[in-house]
């Protein structure tokens, strides 16, 4: 990946707008069309909904000219997201998968960029 940013913050809902705003800034720099950016924010927001409050969440976004990969976690394994969220994430992102790290899971969402120009 050509570049990346890392954001970490408390997992409580009250902090959600920080994620939305930082992703908004990133989407602006990547020249994402509005609709793509909105769905990126919605996908991440949907993923975050699976978190329990009281902990910390980390978001790593790696990107180059062709794609943006967003990694979110940690979630308590197994399957961090419900069936519904799974449907939603697969519709919003180009690909969505969970990777295990010990007893924790990370969600990885990929968004193709090149075609959106």
């Amino acid at each position: 990946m050509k570049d990346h940013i890392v954001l970490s913050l408390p997992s409580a809902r009250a902090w959600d707008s920080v994620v939305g705003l930082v992703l908004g800034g990133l989407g602006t720099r990547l020249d994402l069309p509005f609709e793509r950016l909105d769905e990126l924010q919605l996908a991440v927001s949907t993923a975050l909904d699976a978190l329990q409050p009281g902990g910390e969440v980390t978001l790593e976004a790696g990107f180059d000219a062709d794609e943006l990969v967003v990694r979110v976690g940690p979630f308590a394994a197994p399957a961090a997201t419900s069936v519904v969220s799974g449907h939603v994430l697969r519709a919003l992102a180009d690909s969505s998968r969970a990777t295990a790290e010990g007893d924790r899971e990370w969600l990885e969402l990929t968004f193709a960029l090149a075609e959106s120009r």
Partner: protein
Amino acid sequence: MIGTVRLDLPARPEYLLLARLAVTGVCRAAGGSEEALADLKLAVTEAVANVARHAYPDQAGRVMVELTLAETRLDIAVIDDGKGFDPALDGQAMSSGEHESGMGLSIVSSLADTLSIEPGADGRGTCVRFGRSLSG
């Protein structure tokens, strides 16, 4: 609300936007005044721009912006891992505003209640810390 937000970015001017937006998010969520937000955005802009300009003369580097919220107070730390400063030599130039960094940091000092400049962990790089009340 109490908590810490950490944003790790490439130390390049185009990423300033993200640092400002993170500050916006925290201030609004905490119910801070628009004036406090404006001051803190300007302060973080100066501090991060400083890093982008000076910390990594020879290669690409990164900057960490740490926002620590304690109800009605927000403290910000801008941390880089690059060319540090020598408190003895640069310190004086900094506070007198002659040094270009000094200009930026004297702006920060006028916007914040507190300001400190220290070497980073392990003596590498620099950590600029400043903070302000969010009310009024």
